[in-house]
Every structure is written in structure tokens, then in C-alpha cells.
């Protein structure tokens, strides 16, 4: 199986990896780079627990080939906090009880992070639409939606 040297920025750090053509980005992030915050729930683009930020867009890393990330900038949940300070979406999820088992949480957070860049002042309907690619089995979504709203307000006020 052909192997490729790829290099990309993961949460601000340059990483190099030797990958097979067929290797999925999520596996490289989790297994080669050791950043296991990004999860796997379906491998078919349905659940969103593998969501990462790729060059400023939310993607489901279970259906992105690692080679596609060559030369790109990838951000995962591990990259949200800066210098030990939590991001507003992280704070808000904790504050509003937006998580239970925590399995969907990294994908939710990284999606919420990008969504609030795209739409800094969303309505509830817009939040629902914006997060509709991320499943959660535990929370019934209500507190997640509330958390995104609260994060938006917090980010607006600074």
C-alpha cells in the first residue's frame, strides 16, 4: 500500500505523518498524533462526533482522507482553550449542563466554535440548523442550544 508523507498544522503545532492513501484523518489525529478528544461514532458522516475544523470549515474527519489534510490547518477540541483559558463555548457547555456522557461533546464544541464564527448572533432556530449535523443521545439538545446561545452572548460582549 502506497504511503505518503504529509504535514499539517494541528492546533497550531506542525505535525508530520506517514500515511496510507486510504487512511482517515480521524485515525491519524487520534492514533498518530495521540489527540483522542476527537471521537468516532459511526464512520459514515452521520453522527458528527469526529467533527474537526479544517482550514476554517467544519468537517467530519471520519470521511476525510488524511492526505487531504496535507498542508492544511486542523483544529480539534484540544485547540479550543488558549494558554489554559477555556473558550467561551467550553465555559458555556459546562455552565448550562450541555453535556452528559461527553462523547459528542468535542464534536459539538468544535462545531459550535465554527458556527459562531459564521453566525455570531444566532436565533434558536439558526442554532438548531447549525448544529444539526451533530448527534447527541444524552442531553435532548435543549441545554446544548442554550449553551451556544450563552456563548454567543458572552463572545459578543467582549
Amino acid at each position: 500500500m502506497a504511503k505518503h508523507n504529509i504535514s499539517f498544522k494541528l492546533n497550531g503545532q506542525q505535525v508530520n505523518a506517514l500515511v496510507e492513501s486510504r487512511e482517515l484523518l480521524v485515525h491519524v489525529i487520534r492514533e498518530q498524533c495521540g489527540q483522542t478528544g476527537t471521537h468516532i461514532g459511526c464512520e459514515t458522516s452521520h453522527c458528527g462526533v469526529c467533527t474537526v475544523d479544517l482550514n476554517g470549515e467544519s468537517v467530519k474527519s471520519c470521511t476525510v482522507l488524511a492526505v487531504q489534510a496535507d498542508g492544511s490547518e486542523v483544529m480539534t477540541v484540544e485547540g479550543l482553550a488558549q494558554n489554559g483559558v477555556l473558550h467561551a463555548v467550553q465555559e458555556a457547555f459546562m455552565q448550562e449542563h450541555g453535556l452528559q456522557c461527553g462523547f459528542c461533546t468535542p464534536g459539538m464544541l468544535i462545531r459550535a466554535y465554527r458556527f459562531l464564527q459564521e453566525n455570531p448572533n444566532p436565533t434558536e432556530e439558526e442554532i438548531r440548523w447549525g448544529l444539526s449535523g451533530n448527534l447527541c443521545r444524552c442531553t435532548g439538545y435543549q441545554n446544548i442550544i442554550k449553551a451556544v446561545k450563552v456563548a454567543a452572548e458572552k463572545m459578543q460582549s467582549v
Partner: protein
Amino acid sequence: MATTAEDLAREDKLQGLGCSRKRKEDPRFIQGKGTYVDDVKLPGMLFADMVRSPYAHARIKSINKDKALALPGVHAVLTAADLKPLNLHWMPTLAGDVQAVLADEKVHLQYQEVAVVIADDRYIAADAVELVEVEYEPLPVLVDPHKALDDDAPILREDIKDKDNAGQGPRKHPNHIFSWEVGEQEATSRAFDEAEVVVKEEIYYPRVHPSPLETCGCVASFDKVKGSLMVYITSQAPHIVRTVVSMLSGLPESKVRIISPDIGGGFGNKVGIYPGYVTAIVASIVLGRPVKWVEDRMEHLSTTAWARDYYMTGELAADKNGRIKGLRVNVLADHGAFNSHAQPTKWPAGFFSICTGSYDIPVAYVKVDGVYTNKAPGGVAYRCSFRVTEAVYVIERMMDVLAQKLGIDRMELRMRNFVKPEQFPYHTALGWELDSGDYHTALTKVLKAVDYEGLIKEQAEKRSKGELMGIGVTTFTEVVGAGPSRNCDILGVGMFDSAEIRVHPTGSVIARMGTISQGQGHQTTYAQIIASELGIPSDEIQIEEGDTDTAPYGLGTYGSRSTPVGGAATAMAARKIHDKARKIAAHLLEASENDLEWDIDRFKVKGVPGAEKTMKEIAWAAYNRPPEGLEPGLEAVNYYDPPNFTYPFGAYLCVVDIDKYTGEVKVRRFYALDDCGTRINPMIIEGQIHGGLNEGFAVAMGQELPFDAEGNILGNTFMDYFIPTTMETPHWETDYTVTPSPHHPLGAKGVAESPHVGSIPCFTSAVVNAFAHKGVTHMNMPHTSFRVWQKIHELSLDKRE
């Protein structure tokens, strides 16, 4: 009782019972620092992957592993023939049956495990799976459980075909598993013969899957030198896993360490033992290296524990005023190819006999027959306590049907039949002792909150305009907290639970429980219980669960048993410490124990201001100068065997609008009032209720695992299997009353499952009610747009003027 501002501040600092304390689990999860099974990486770890059957029923003629073994990076390919010498090709199920670990001569369901491949990484393992050549001879397939007991039905379980008992009592056909009956058959028949009104309804509860977002998996690591085994596993019951692994492997239980790390949701799916776990363990023992097995979503939906699949015939007998005289329910239960539902041993239909619900029903009779079919084994408690969901569904549906027949308002009919507050403890016709309840108050509160009268008026107006609006109701009673060990055990182990609490010299605490959180927030709430009992701030109390080397033995977390059983054990262990602390305080204060009073976080000598010792001071003394005759140290263990179950209840109301051209059901309003007794952390309770309601919504509106005539499963991806997104999920309104349990040390009853159990019939009630004026009495789930549209169309309600 705190009175002064200073007292209040002291009490607040504890963050004890009743406080919406923020969760202690969250910091690691929001930073991607949780440790789930798939995050575990051990040196030299190999990967396991399964060869699975494409057929639902077939004989295995040959298996050729040569090509797979020749692939570089493949370490082993194991089949039933390899496991046979170890006697591990079959394993016991929690229900007294056996299940093939790897298919032994034949396969009984599609996707059944046929061989396991062990390789350097998951890619090579997947390649090797493709290279294993299996030759099958297809056999006739049994899909419809109604045909299971026919004379000419294909016999599925050849391994037990001559046995007249498959672990749960006598059976009457090779495809029969058990007959279970409870209640008084003759007296019930009499009640029906004499009744003024009788109603009967055929109700199917479809096969659904709990589908937590994390699939099942494990990492098994056998240390050849020490002869010890460590397994990280997605289990809701790690201690039971340890016992079973020890029994299967012959390793002493003390050399088996099971760790349930963070678990990405369970909902009843992660109670049983799966072939993947067993094969990973065997492979690790054989190869002497750590082996990881993590299934994918399709494997998860196809083969791991599903729930329900009950064909229920419900009957109610009543007088003209709607007073119920009798209940009869007959059930045909499809258990799949192996009986591996996870019920307490003596309960082949779980707690289904709670189906008299919240009502004062003089006599009842229930019969359940379980049969084998060529489908995945299961029948677990999907966010419920052992078949309670089915029980609540049948009685709540029948209440609606009876109301409709009598022309009595559904709320009124319930009010007339509720067990009255003064009747508690109430003994049901089928043998339960309902501990406490106030059903009238709960329903009255809900009707007022939603302006029921107004809704009825609005509905009448809408109906006159040809629009479809439905109002749904349920007033359910759950039974949770399994359970008293005199009648509840799993594999002979009583269903108690445990807590061990240690107070360190400086007054901080570590406590370990036999339960295991899968999102319920135990680290947060157990600490609150201890905080209130011992007067030590929650933040100084560390909670640990899930490691069998350190935690006391417990039966785990499912059936809403953590608070009723584990929570009780925690309170009782804390009270032991409290008692000892009182002795130490008396010694330190040179007073008699009787002269002491407890005040939030300290003992005071009654009537002597300033003569007091805080729990922290007492802790130091416990390690430093305990009174003569008292052991040093301050710790306690409690194994709590509950005297009874707890019976949370609730009243739910749902309003739907249905598009008569598309069949789309819009949930306009959902109002859920829950009574779970004493409330430990209202924020967490509300979160659990939201989640349970959403899972109920999923079941009612879209989930099912259908099969075609060949036994091919048709719903095993997230493309086909409905998981509501933010877009479909309604807005939830929650409310509560508090009726403490009289026998639980804290008065708490458990909550996480009520919203699932209670909401499902409520959605059906609403959908059916939209058609009630057309004479419709029941519609089977799932209420998808297409199915609802079919009803609309059948009734010609979609005619355009």
C-alpha cells in the same frame, strides 16, 4: 436547619443535597481529555476485527483462513474450532441460556461472529477479514415470531433442541424459550365475564436499539508473567464482567481487573457480555499481547443488545363509570437467536407485571411467551427498568382505549382509577408494593399548567375545520432500583450495591462505588450525598467508580438503580462514619454522645455555646487520638440491599399538529412533570429528563429495526435508524412534585428512565388522539410521516376541497 446568614453560608459551601452543583466530570470532557475505551493505547497492542455472517440462518461448511494468515501483519485468525479446546466457543448469557462466542457449525443471525482476526492495526485487520473464506449452506429462516412455534418451523437452536428448559422454565417447542405468567387467571376471567364494558387492543412495541454514540469495545491485556488479566471495557456492570470472565477463563477473580473508563452512553446496551469482548480476551491470553476490539456502528446496531419487540394484547374490564375491574395482557416476545436479555434471573419478562400502572386494579393476569427467531439476541432495558417501558405502554394505551369506548375524558378516567395517596403503600394485583405517590396532584398540576380546557376547545375548533391536532397524556408509575436480593439477582449475585468512604486525616474524602456512570454525573451527585451527611464540602470529596481492583463489588448502573441502591449505600456508609465521628466528638468535648447535636458540619454540645468540633477536627483526631477502645481511622463500607423497589411517577402531556397532506407530526408542546422523590441535583435531574424525553421521542416517532423475509436487518446504519437531530427534537418543559420514598435513606427514587418510559405512550396517545374523532383507537409506532400519512389516506382525510 440553617437559620442565620452564617449558617446558610456554611451550608452553601457544602454543595450538598438539593444543590444544582456544576458537574465535576465536565472539565475533562470539554477539553477532550476523557478516557473512553478506544482512547486506551497500550504498548504492543493489536487489533481484533470480526468476520460476520451474511446469512441469518446457515450451516458453516468450511472456513479457510490461509489467505488471511498469509497477509503481513496478521497474527491470528480464530474460529469456534480454536475456542473449543478452551471450552470458550459458547458462553453463558445473563438469562441462563448460552450464546455462541464464534458460530459453532451454524449461524443463527445475520452479522453473527464467525471468526476473529488479530492484526497489527485496524486497517490490516479489516483487510484480513475480507480474506477469510467461509462457505455457507443457507437454511430456512425464521423471522416472524408468530410462526416460531409452528410444527413446520425451522428449528433454530440445535444445541438445545432436546432440552425442555433453556434456563427460564419449561418450554413447549424447540423454538420456545419460556412461558411466564403472573396474577390470577380465573379471577381475572370472571371479572371480564361480569364486566359492563370490555376493551381489547393489539399493540406492537417494535424492536429498537439504545444506540449510545460510543459503540462497544474493549482492550484486553494479559500479563503472562503475572498470570493476570486487565480489561478496559465499555460496561455498565464491570464487577459482573469480572465474575463472568473469571468463571469463563478459570483465572481467579483476584487476577482479573476490569476497568470501565469513561463511557459514551449506555442506555442498557452495555450491560451484557459480547463475543467481541470474549474473543479479545482469548486473543490476548493466547498471544500475550494487548488486544483492542472496537466495533463499528453497523456491527453495533446489528448484533448488540436491542430492546422491546413485544406483541401485546391488552384487555381491560370496567363498569360504566370507568372504574376498572380487571386487566389481562398476553405477550409474544421475540428474543432473537439466544436468550441474552439482561433481566434479573427470576424475571424472564423483567418487571413487566408493573403493568397495572398507577391504577387501583382489583385483579389482573399477565402471560408472556418468549421465542427464538433468526435475529440478534437481546431484549434489554433501553433506558428503562427491565420491560417497564412495555408495561407502561400497554396500560397507558389501554386507558386511552377504555376512555374512548366509554366517552369519558381520558384525564377524568385516570383520576377515577388512580391509587389514592392514602392507599400507599399500595399492593398491586400483580405483587408490587408501590412505596409512595400522589398521582392526583401531579396530573392536576399538569392540566392547569397547559390549560387543558383551552386545548380541548382549540382541538374542537380545529376538528371542525378538518385539521388534525392531538393531545396525548400519560400518568405512569415506574419501578426502579433493582433490587431486593431476595428476589433480584444476576447469575446468582444479589442486586445490592455498595459504597466505600474514606475520610482522610485532613478531612478530605475519597469514596468508591459499585455503580458506574455513563453520563449520569455520579462524580458530582454522590459527593453531594456525602457532603450533606458528613458536613464536608463536595469539592473535597473525590468519587471513583469502574475499577474492580479498587471499587467495592456492585451490580452496576442500569434500571435507574444508582440513586436508589448506590445512593442509599453511600448515605448508609456515610452514616456509619457519622456515628463514629459522634463518638470521637463526645470524647474530644468531654461530653456524653446524647448531649451532642449535629449542625451542618459539626457536633455541638447542646446548650454550651462554643463547645463544638467540626468534622474536619474530628477527622484529624480519628487518626491522632481516638477515644480508648475505638479503632483509629475514619472510613466505612456499606453494601445496601434495598427493602423494596422505588416507584417514581409522572404526568406528561403532549400536543401535536399533523399535516394532513404529508403526515408530518409536529410536537408543539411537551410538558413533563416528574416525581422522583427527594431531588439530589435539580440541574442533573432536568438534564436527565431532557435526554430521556428525547430518547422517548426517537422511539415513538422513528426508531425500529426491521428485517426482510430472509432475515436481513434493514435498519443498521444511522442513515436508516432514526436518531433525532436538533431539527426534529421538540422543546421540553419540565416540572416536578416531591413525594419521598419512605424506605430510601434519602427519600430519593431515581429519575433517568422515567422520561423515556413515560413519554413514549404519551406521543402515541397524542398521535392517535388526532384521529380519535374518526374512531381510531390505536396506531403502532413508529409514527413516521409515511405511516401517519397512510392512516390519513385510509381515512380520506387528505382530500383537497
